[in-house]
């Protein structure tokens, strides 16, 4: 894990309604030297966005609403167009919809900067986070 040496700084908002995913994302991001603020509802996340500017956000697509992630993305892009967004989703499997974040049309529409599968792979997540943080600076 070469990202381990490259300590980053900054604040990441993580929004997910699964307490375990929140814990796990926190562990991975804190290991990179980042400050992590978590929220487990769309409502709390919106309050966070209103309060302070993060350096990066990670949103779950489905929280209390099917489209919580989309709405949060929209709010972010309105308020902080330069802050990178990572969307985490398991929608395709969960809903059995032929919809996944691999489709470029969806990506353009959602306007997130990266998409990750819900089965977290720490190296992949860390690589994406480093890349996006470095690019946005």
């Amino acid at each position, binding site marked *: 894990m070469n990202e381990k040496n490259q300590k980053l700084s900054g604040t990441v908002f993580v929004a997910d309604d699964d307490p*375990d995913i929140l814990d*796990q994302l926190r562990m991975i991001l804190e290991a990179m030297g980042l400050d992590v603020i978590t929220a487990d*509802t769309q409502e709390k996340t919106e309050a966070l966005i209103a309060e302070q500017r993060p350096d990066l956000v990670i949103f779950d697509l489905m929280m209390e609403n099917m489209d919580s992630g989309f709405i949060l993305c929209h709010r972010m892009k309105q308020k902080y167009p330069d802050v990178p967004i990572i969307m985490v989703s398991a929608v395709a499997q969960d809903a059995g919809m032929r919809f996944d974040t691999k489709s470029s049309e969806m990506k353009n529409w959602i306007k997130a900067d990266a998409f990750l599968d819900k089965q977290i792979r720490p190296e992949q997540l860390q690589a994406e986070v480093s890349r996006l943080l470095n690019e946005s600076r």
Partner: protein
Amino acid sequence: MKADKSLRLLVVDDEEGMRLGIERGLKNHSFSFPEFDTEVSYEISLAEDGESALDILKNEVFDLILLDYMLPGINGLDVLLFVQKEHPETTVIMVTAFASLEVAVSATKHGAYDFLAKPFSPKELRHVVSKATKHIMTLREARRLADEKRHIRFEFLSVLAHELKSPLAAVENYLQLMDQRISGNDLEVYDKSIKRSLTRLGGMRKMILDLLDLTRLESGQFERHSEWVDLKDVLDNSFESMAVLAEEQDITLSSSFDGECRVYAVAAEVEILLNNFISNAIKYNREHGSVVVKTNSDSREVRIEVLDTGIGMTEEEVGLLFGEFVRIRNKKTRNIQGSGLGLSIVNKIIRNLNGSIEVKSTPDVGSTFTVVLPINNESDELVTPESDMATA
């Protein structure tokens, strides 16, 4: 509510009078089937010979065909064979002036459903059509039930797979992170991960045990051995096994008994029943809340009320409660572990024991689950049709 259903009928006959006679006899007539809650009427098409019948049948599907046996050119039997091959779900009634046994046998051998001998009265016509219609409706109902069953099983499996997948993923992720020493080499920093993993594994184990209970109850293969079960003993045991869970949330458990409070039943089923109620009453409670179990009995039945001071449910949520894998999902229940099978198990047991259940609930105040069981459901030979259906 009565449904009006329109089915499609093709009349194939070379005599115009016959075609129009049948049309007149069936048009504006509806067949009533209270057993299916349906009124059936026919939308009628006419064909004057075998050739035009085949032309129509190449493009259209009918529910019922009244088919003349003696047609010029392509005869009725050929049309029947075509229908059998291309539209096996279409019901055919053969019509002929030569109602010989031979013709009848030949036609039914080739799949005709019934027979109508010329000449016939409108009443005879309707009688035969009515019988065939009932046959069509019965087949459809059977197919619908089979589809529904298949669908339910599919749904069950897909939900089950999903419900097992999420805890599995959680534990796998934790182990992976610990394996990478993501937060350093001190074991203590992983305490929470270890605890969460154990909790999620415990949830999976509970779900698998519940599934075993459920399949055991549903299979009905096992001999159910009844004995006198003292509810006080069962409840004491249940409270004891739930003590830790209750302490975590500082919930007081208490019980009261009025009367003998014994039932002649399968002990294991009664235990599963009460355990489910009490663990729910604890899990969906508030901190520092209470669970009260009031039991009273008379000579015929015993009544068990489980009262909690929990989060409660809306009327709508109560309605959903007994389905398989239904977990009332909202902000208040998000962190509560459950298999979603508990109450479907409860429901099956209550049916096994010829009992009944009632739920009263107020959001943020609490819920009361009331179960009434016959003291001895075996001595009472009055098996209700409902209990028959439950075990079928």
